[in-house]
């Protein structure tokens, strides 16, 4: 066991805790931002911290620190216990039964840290160079970033759990600016992998440029109710907002719009949603959750029916079920409930065929104001931009519009799911294909 964890657990025990759990994390970060052919800034760091959870007569205490001197660790244990004294006691406050953790490969690229930083700098410079050479209307970027990191988690508790894993990630981000006459548009794209070599430089540059240029000349259209096609970049963001509704904690505390709907249809039959913590290539994949419960694949919605919620040990106990291995946390927080790789499963139709089904409608590419959604009522009204669909094809660009509805309403109105699954970070690591929504209210002139 890590000596820091060992010291914390034994101190907690000595001070009267019935049980305790130490969560240690350490990581490295390398980030380079470039602008105009030069490095703008470069960040390189190693970081660490530890959180301690204590249990005394079913009262939970918690404290964290980034200071791992011996005195600070002893103070931390005392502080966690002191905090716990004020909490109300609940039978559900327990550590999980230790289980065997199955290995999960493919999370870690051992070479990432030893790659010459200059190669990473050059990758970023090349992203900018390519992005500004593809289209005469894109001469500038507002942001080009290469970043990578390695994270190491160790979790130990007084029930004998002592596990850990390591994960790496590398990504490149481009925010391009397209200009035409006096108009300007921004276009965002990113590429990700476990390793530098897995990044798609040409692809991300092309995409950022297309996204920026594609919206030039966009105009508002009339307020109406029309069929709406969601591009995966927009669909993943909506899915990310939905994510918190699957939380067993939100259900318990009546903050989920899916509360009380178990076994009922909450979406159209074409919709199946899973949270897959062991998804190959999923950036949120992990062998175990924030309490050391094995991570797995959970079917949340199958053919439109709500099959279950995500649970950690506490919420499972309270609702009479089993933990789904869905505890999420950092060393600065107690385990909450959250998604990992949240995926709306792809269908069989081609994207073009989905668009082909619409005579007059809106193809939504960018969503703004995700944080304006009311996660309890499910009501939303996003700012959107994209293209008008006319006679089954993308036509002129559209911007400064709103699209409004209710999240559940939207799920129920999905009448087409394409096969083009794409991922992005949106709360969790969310995957969604192109989907067709029968009708939504769009606001404009």
């Amino acid at each position, binding site marked *: 066991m890590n000596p820091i964890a060992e010291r914390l657990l034994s101190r907690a025990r000595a001070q009267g805790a019935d049980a305790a759990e130490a969560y240690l994390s350490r990581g490295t970060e390398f980030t380079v931002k470039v602008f105009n052919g030069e*490095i*703008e*800034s*470069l*960040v*390189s*760091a190693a*970081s*660490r911290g530890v959180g301690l959870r204590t249990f005394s007569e079913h009262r939970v*205490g*918690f*404290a*964290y*620190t*980034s*200071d*791992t001197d011996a005195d*600070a660790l002893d103070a*931390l244990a005392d502080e966690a216990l002191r905090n*716990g004294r*004020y*909490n*109300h006691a609940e039978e559900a406050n327990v550590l999980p039964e230790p289980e065997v953790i199955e290995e999960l490969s493919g999370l870690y690229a051992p070479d990432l840290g030893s790659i010459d930083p200059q190669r990473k*700098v050059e990758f970023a410079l090349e992203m900018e160079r390519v992005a500004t050479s593809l289209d005469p209307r894109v001469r500038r970027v*507002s942001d080009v970033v290469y970043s990578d990191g390695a994270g190491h988690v160790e979790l130990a508790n007084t029930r004998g759990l002592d596990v850990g894993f390591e994960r790496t990630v590398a990504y490149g981000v481009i925010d391009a*600016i397209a200009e035409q006459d006096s108009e*300007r548009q*921004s276009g965002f794209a990113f590429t990700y992998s476990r390793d530098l070599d897995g990044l798609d430089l040409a692809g991300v540059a092309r995409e950022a440029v297309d996204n920026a240029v594609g919206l030039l000349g966009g105009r*508002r*259209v*009339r*307020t*109406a*109710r029309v069929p709406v096609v969601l591009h995966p970049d927009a669909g993943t963001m909506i899915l990310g907002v939905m994510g918190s509704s699957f939380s067993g904690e939100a259900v318990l*505390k*009546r*903050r989920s719009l899916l509360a009380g709907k178990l076994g009922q249809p909450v979406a159209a039959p074409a919709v199946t949603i899973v949270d897959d913590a062991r998804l190959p290539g999923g950036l949120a994949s992990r062998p175990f959750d924030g309490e050391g419960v094995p991570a797995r694949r959970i079917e949340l919605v199958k053919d439109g029916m709500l099959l279950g919620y995500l649970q950690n040990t506490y919420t499972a106990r309270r609702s009479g079920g089993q933990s789904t291995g869905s505890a999420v946390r950092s060393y*600065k927080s107690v385990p909450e409930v959250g998604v990992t790789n949240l995926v709306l499963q792809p269908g069989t139709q081609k994207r073009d065929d989905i668009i082909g089904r619409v005579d007059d409608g809106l193809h939504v590419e960018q969503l*703004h*104001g995700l*944080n*304006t959604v*009311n996660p*309890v*009522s499910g*009501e939303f*009204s*996003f*700012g959107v931009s994209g293209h*008008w669909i006319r006679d089954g094809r993308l036509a002129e660009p559209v*911007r400064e*519009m*709103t699209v*409004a*509805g209710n999240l559940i309403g939207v799920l129920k109105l999905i009448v087409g799911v394409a096969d083009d699954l794409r991922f992005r970070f949106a709360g969790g690591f969310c995957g969604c294909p192109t989907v067709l929504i029968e009708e939504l*209210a*769009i*606001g*404009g*002139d």
Partner: protein
Amino acid sequence: MPLLDPSLADAVIRRALRSGADFAELFVERKRNQAVTVEESQVQRVSSGNDRGAGLRIIHGGVVSYIYTEDLSDTGLLKTAEVAASVGRRGGGRFALGQVVDTPHPPQEVELDPGGVDVEAKVELLLEADQAAREKGGEIRQVAVGYGESRQEVLVVNSEGVQHQDARTRVRLMVQAVAERNGEIQTAMEAPGAQRGFEFFDEASAAEYARMAAERALMLLDAAPSPAGTMPVVVGNEFGGVLFHEACGHGLEADFVSKGSTVFTGKVGQTVASPIVTAIDDGTLKARWGTLGVDDEGVPTRRTVLIQDGVLVSYMFDRLRAGQLAHPVTGNGRRQSYQHLPIPRMTNTFIAPGAHSVEDIIAATPRGLYARKLGAGQVDVVTGDFVFAVTEGYLIEAGRVGRLVRGATIVGNGPRALHRIDMVGNDLKLAPGTCGKDGQGVPVSVGQPTIRISELTVGGTGVVPAGAMRP
């Protein structure tokens, strides 16, 4: 206790300069926080944390390198300085930094250090609020109440001889009420806070805020869906300032300006707003959420007029961008923590009050939306396009406040909206918030009096004609 021994800080700076860098700066931070949560009328959580670390920035030929660490021992920091000197990149360019002038303002005064207040008192405050919200009736199904405090101490030491400290103590209350009727759920929240000690709650009644949240959640159960379309919008002073913050404030931050990525680039001296609009960023206001003695580069904060009578006067600068654009510093170089580089950020930003009462403004509006309270929002800095949630909105009919509507958002373009402000009220109010940019969250205040924007797009699900229509 000083955050760091001055001679150690000095040694770290000298070591970091060894590779020939032009500038080195050490930012040391210690932060303590505590949070208490009451849910289901019981204490759900008491937690606390200690963050302690340092970030070392070196600039060499215009290229910024940054390294941070939690190891504040002599050997740890000196090693960090070695690494910084070795990984640091050398740029070919010439650069200048905006100069640190003036003396720092003293930190905000705190009467009752929240860290010294018993947890019992905090719990009592929350239970009182919980009770007050639940007394609003059986349709209030869930109440979540939270208390948070933090004390952040920072030290900035640099190779120019600057050694400035600041301390920021903040307390905040959060109340969320959930109301339910016939399966329909509505929610409302209040989150007052200040840069003060626990004495803040002598004046700000937790129970009163809880009642306000509960009443609004209940009211929303009776609200009709918001109409969609383009109309005049009266934006109230309850967090309404978020509109200026997002839609214009970010565009006035000098990092966007120096890259030419905002619509306000090169527009100093030009008319960018209606002549009745004056906007200010002021990091010196007493006890406000975004107030600082010195910013996170050691620059004393000040009052900066951004827009005067519709004319753009100044951007907001950190030292690097002040140097790039040859402008005096404004004390807007901020960072979330020692793990982040300083960048230009707002402090307390607001539209200055005008002549009209709210009643005048409503009465002068035959038809439109009264967005009394705004919620979260977002903006695209490149285009200036924004979207905001209206958390309490009413229809305006024949110059009167009509029915409450729900689910409304307002969508528009910042620069255009500035020109379309045609009435400014006399009821300026500031509210606390956390502003996110480049993955960094910092505390700010947003503010404005009630204003009227002659035309904005309103999003909602109500009163929309059926059937597809051509653009």
